């Protein structure tokens, strides 16, 4: 068929082949098979786009997500950290009238659950008056007894509440689950929105879609309204993370940046005199609000789980003393249990004098005899879950059990009936997911969010929609594959434009004030600087050799090549056997191994790996731009047909690395505020570069200062060839090279330049650092090493050492360079000891 001249209406072709199951509700198509009205504007807009254009936009979502570093860590994934976040091209659309009902239901539910928490952690009247069976609290592992009696500011236990909603065949929304611990997903929803509104800028603008940033602003203000009355003039809030290995770490970084609260790990906080402090380079700074992204039982090894190495010892005591607000309050997991769903309609009438607006999926708590009996009789139609800890085991679908499985399940249920609930099976509604072959219906679940604001609870006008990877799957979760969707809530009132100040929050700021650099972060930045510098040095070195292996000059360069290979052996980059004889093919193989071998220390691939894993931990400190350059660093060609590296490929890799590294250091210089974070990063770079120059010169000088063949490559590695030629108009000779690479304080590649930069950093390092742990040390102070360095660099007569004919000169040169490297290493130890001494936590 030739359709180049007159395209058929694309809208029809978009829906062609989209046939949702008849027994489920479809979000897009009504019962007549026609699109629902609220989808029309979007469908019309999409209809204007050719399949190629849609494919291009799908690719754009992938690219943007990759640039943002959006990931979701899957625990059982062999790829380990950071599976890319997956976002479908099409949003889900919720019409305004429907949203108003959902919104009211969500807010009511949050109020109700908060009331329950007030009772559980207070008088427990609901138990005593017989409105709730005692087992619901006493058998509930989410009920944390040490937190009983702690009353948060304004009785606000539940700051952020999340609800998983599904739509049944009749179009009714049902609550599948409540998330009351440290709900995740709001940040992903926001990320999805940022991406989709970039991919469909016009389509998005032309529809009345509710904006999300206002919700986060409300959340931020709501949090600051929860500051305990400790008299702090400018309260500090932090986001407490379990660390980079947590499944939703990306989102935690994203939220911390968006809210403007630093991201901290348990080890960054300490409790003194019942107050929480953050350990910074300049000492302890008080913290008044903690947004926790950690399960509450892990938050304090002293009073909660003793085996937790993530928490903050004394946090429960500080909360009890009322000096810190933890959001959600410690113990708020107690209302997450599915067992509670069976009681919510009654409790809602009793406590709020209202009918429950958003029904939970029909639930029978088997702790009651009649309910257990019902579950037994209707097992085929029901799903059996743990009453308190649904996440601990997979739900069991009664209809999928054989006789033996059924008998075993019933026996367990009879022995600990209170531990089970039976729930009605909900046939999830389907939504269109854009696949290569067109739109496909997939079962989906929406996660919605509510937060406490100064004027009560408010719902986020949007959601994180997740869909399952196959049509048949009965359970939707990001852990078990599947994807996500943006969720467009259509509004009939114009939405105010988002506040520009908030919008720019995803731009970079390394830190807000110098005081907010935790010691752990400074340590990581320092090593990040060192690895980047090491990477550049090694890359230049390998490129220098490879250029001579493949160069057109051929035989002319052989003396240079052999000098270089000797240099590499002396620097221990090449194995010692290359000292005697070598074949060019062997050298080539060695170079390739040094670029991309994964089984060897010091290869480019290995150093990149180290820099990456530090960057991963430091992610909240880097801008999107920095992050996207970091993601480009790699030790293999971008497009390679065969598995083996070829000279041209290898050279391409090295050239790309040099350029990307230059871009990174450019971003560092231009975009990072000159706080302590930057200072430690640059200190790492300067120290590493100083060590590299000193050892490089030392190895080169070992070949004798009468030989000049090594000098051209040396200048190349030190990126100083151009400067040299401009300055000396001559072939390289030792006096000139030493002048340029040692004594010249204006050459950013010279030893003196590094020492000068290090001096400035040391002078400006924080003085009030936490040195409680610093016992008498043999490492000396940074100042001590600095003085020794200056002495060698400035007071050595470098020229005399290379023009001295007696031969004593080269021995002294070697000695002086060795001393420089030693003092620089000593300096590194001293800094580590003074600033990064890591607190070791141990339980007794």
């Amino acid at each position, binding site marked *: 068929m030739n359709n180049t001249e007159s395209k058929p209406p694309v809208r029809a072709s978009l829906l062609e082949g989209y046939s949702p199951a008849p027994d489920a509700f479809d979000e897009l198509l009504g019962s007549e098979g026609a699109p629902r009205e609220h989808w029309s504007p979007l469908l019309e807009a999409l209809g204007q786009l050719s399949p190629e254009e849609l494919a291009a936009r799908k690719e754009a979502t992938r690219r943007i997500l990759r640039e943002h570093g959006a990931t979701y860590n899957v625990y059982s994934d062999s790829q380990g950290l950071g599976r890319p976040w997956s976002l479908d091209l099409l949003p889900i659309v919720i019409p305004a009238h429907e949203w108003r009902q959902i919104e009211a239901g969500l807010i009511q539910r949050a109020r109700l659950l908060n009331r329950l928490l007030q009772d559980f952690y207070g008088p427990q009247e609901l*138990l*005593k*008056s*017989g409105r709730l*069976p*005692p*087992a*619901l609290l*006493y*058998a509930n*592992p989410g009920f944390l*007894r*040490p937190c*009983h*009696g702690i009353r948060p500011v304004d009785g606000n236990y539940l700051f952020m509440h999340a609800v998983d909603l599904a739509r049944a065949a009749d179009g009714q929304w049902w609550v599948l689950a409540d998330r009351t611990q440290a709900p995740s997903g709001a940040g992903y929803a926001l990320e999805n929105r940022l991406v989709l509104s970039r991919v469909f800028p016009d389509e998005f603008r032309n529809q009345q879609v509710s904006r999300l940033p206002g919700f986060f602003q409300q959340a931020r203000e709501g949090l600051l309204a929860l500051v305990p009355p400790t008299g702090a003039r400018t309260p500090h809030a932090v986001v407490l993370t379990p660390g980079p290995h947590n499944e939703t770490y990306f989102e935690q970084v994203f939220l911390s940046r968006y809210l403007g609260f630093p991201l901290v790990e348990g080890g960054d906080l*300490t*409790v*003194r*005199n*019942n107050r929480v402090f953050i350990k910074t380079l300049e000492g302890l700074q008080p913290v008044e609000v903690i947004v926790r992204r950690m399960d509450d039982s892990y938050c304090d*090894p*002293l*009073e909660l789980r*003793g085996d937790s190495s993530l928490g903050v*010892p*004394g946090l429960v*005591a500080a909360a*009890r*003393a009322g000096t810190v607000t933890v959001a959600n309050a410690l113990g708020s997991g107690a209302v997450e249990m599915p067992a509670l769903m069976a009681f919510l309609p009654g409790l809602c009438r009793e406590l709020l004098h209202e009918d429950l607006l958003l029904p939970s999926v029909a639930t029978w708590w088997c*702790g*009651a005899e009649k309910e257990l009996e019902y579950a037994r009789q209707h097992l085929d139609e029901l799903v059996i879950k743990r009453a308190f800890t649904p996440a601990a085991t997979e739900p069991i679908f009664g209809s999928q059990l054989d006789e033996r499985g059924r008998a075993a399940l019933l026996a367990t249920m009879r*022995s*600990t009936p*209170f531990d089970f609930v039976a729930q009605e099976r909900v046939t999830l509604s389907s939504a269109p997911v854009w696949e290569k072959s067109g739109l496909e219906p997939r079962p989906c679940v929406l996660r919605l969010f509510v937060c406490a604001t100064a004027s009560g609870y408010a719902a986020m006008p949007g959601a994180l929609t997740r869909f399952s990877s196959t049509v048949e799957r009965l359970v939707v979760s990001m852990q078990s594959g599947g994807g996500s969707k943006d969720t467009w809530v259509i509004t009939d009132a114009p939405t105010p434009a988002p506040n520009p100040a908030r919008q720019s929050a995803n731009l970079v700021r390394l830190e807000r004030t110098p005081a907010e650099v935790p010691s752990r972060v400074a340590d990581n930045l320092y090593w990040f600087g060192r690895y980047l510098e090491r990477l550049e040095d090694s890359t230049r070195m390998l490129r220098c050799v490879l250029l001579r292996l493949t160069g057109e000059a051929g035989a002319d360069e052989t003396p240079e090549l052999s000098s270089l290979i000797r240099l590499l052996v002396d620097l221990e980059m090449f194995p010692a056997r290359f000292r005697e004889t070598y074949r060019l093919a062997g050298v080539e193989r060695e170079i390739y191994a040094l670029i991309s071998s994964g089984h060897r220390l010091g290869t480019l691939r290995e150093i990149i790996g180290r820099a990456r894993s530090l960057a991963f931990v430091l992610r909240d400190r880097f801008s999107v731009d920095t992050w996207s350059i970091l993601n480009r660093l790699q030790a293999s060609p971008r497009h390679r047909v065969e598995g083996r590296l070829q000279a041209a490929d290898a050279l391409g890799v090295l050239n790309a690395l040099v350029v990307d590294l230059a871009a990174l250091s450019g971003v560092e210089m231009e975009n990072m505020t000159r706080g302590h974070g930057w200072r430690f990063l640059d200190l790492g770079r300067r120290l590493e570069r100083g060590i590299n120059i000193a050892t490089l010169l030392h190895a080169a000088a070992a070949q004798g200062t009468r030989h000049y063949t090594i000098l051209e490559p040396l200048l190349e590695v030190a990126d100083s060839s151009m400067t040299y030629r401009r300055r000396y108009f001559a072939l390289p000779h030792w006096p000139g090279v030493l002048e340029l690479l040692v004594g010249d304080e204006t050459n950013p590649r010279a030893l003196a330049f590094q020492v000068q930069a290090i001096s400035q950093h040391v002078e400006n390092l924080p003085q009030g650092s936490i040195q*409680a*742990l610093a*016992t008498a040390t043999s490492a000396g102070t940074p100042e001590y090493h600095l003085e020794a360095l200056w002495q060698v660099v400035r007071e050595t007569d470098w020229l005399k050492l290379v023009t001295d004919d007696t031969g004593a000169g080269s021995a002294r040169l070697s000695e002086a360079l060795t001393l420089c490297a030693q003092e620089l290493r000593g300096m590194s130890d001293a800094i580590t000891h003074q600033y990064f001494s890591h*607190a*070791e*936590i*141990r*339980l*007794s």
Partner: protein
Amino acid sequence: MKYELTHTTRFDYETPVSVAYHRLCLTPRPLPRQHLHAHELVIEPIPSQRVPGTDYFGNAFTFLTLDQPHQSLVITARTSVSILPTTLPLPAATPPWEEIRSLADGRQFAPAGEVSEFTFNSPFVERDPEIADYSNKSFPTERPILDACAALMGRIHDDFTFDPTATTIATPLKQVFRKRRGVCQDFAHLLIASLRSLGLPARYVSGYLETQPPPGKTRLVGADASHAWVQAWCGPDFGWIDLDPTNNTFPSERHIVLAWGRDFGDVSPSRGVLIGGGRHKLNVAVDVIPVAG
């Protein structure tokens, strides 16, 4: 009976501890049959912060922060206490155990719903079908609760060997059950698990036991130790009754109660989190000296 009680806990650290947090549960509970004449807690070095409190179960605890470097920590609890003897009900007079089970099943609060707090799983004690099979043998239909408990306690005492080298506090209960050896904590946890696995409420008691020297010998100073036993609930009329499965006795005048909870984790005499310190050496000495008066 009146006692002068001294409980000394000494930590020696390999390297200085820069900051330490401790939660102590070393103050005996005042009870109708346990009268405290005097109590003091001496901490060396002097902590930077010391806050007393009462936990969820009504036990007294003390929260300490030490923020000056120290290489040793000595906690001394001194108590002067009088204990009255218990009067045990006639086991046959206690209600059938099934009645207790249904009162404590956590479905209804009235009339004694608060005891169901101790019926369900807790961090150190999980209900277990294998353990239920074991205890079931002592619980035939309609047997009076205390009679059945006494029989079960006797069986545990006979079937299990007291062996201080067999377990640590980290040893899972199931392993203790299979190895058939352990210390007083394990015996207590076993009896609790045996009762809870049948749906009966049981709680963990931490305290001290006055040890009697062998005939003709004088008491050795520091020879006593922390002890642990169990309380089983025997219905609204009789309440909680103490059972010591390690010694197969009903505690009376020689058992001094410190605290109770669902299991060891709720009432551990000292919990701590340290920063620094390296390895540490622990010395505990307990003296329970009977005095006249």
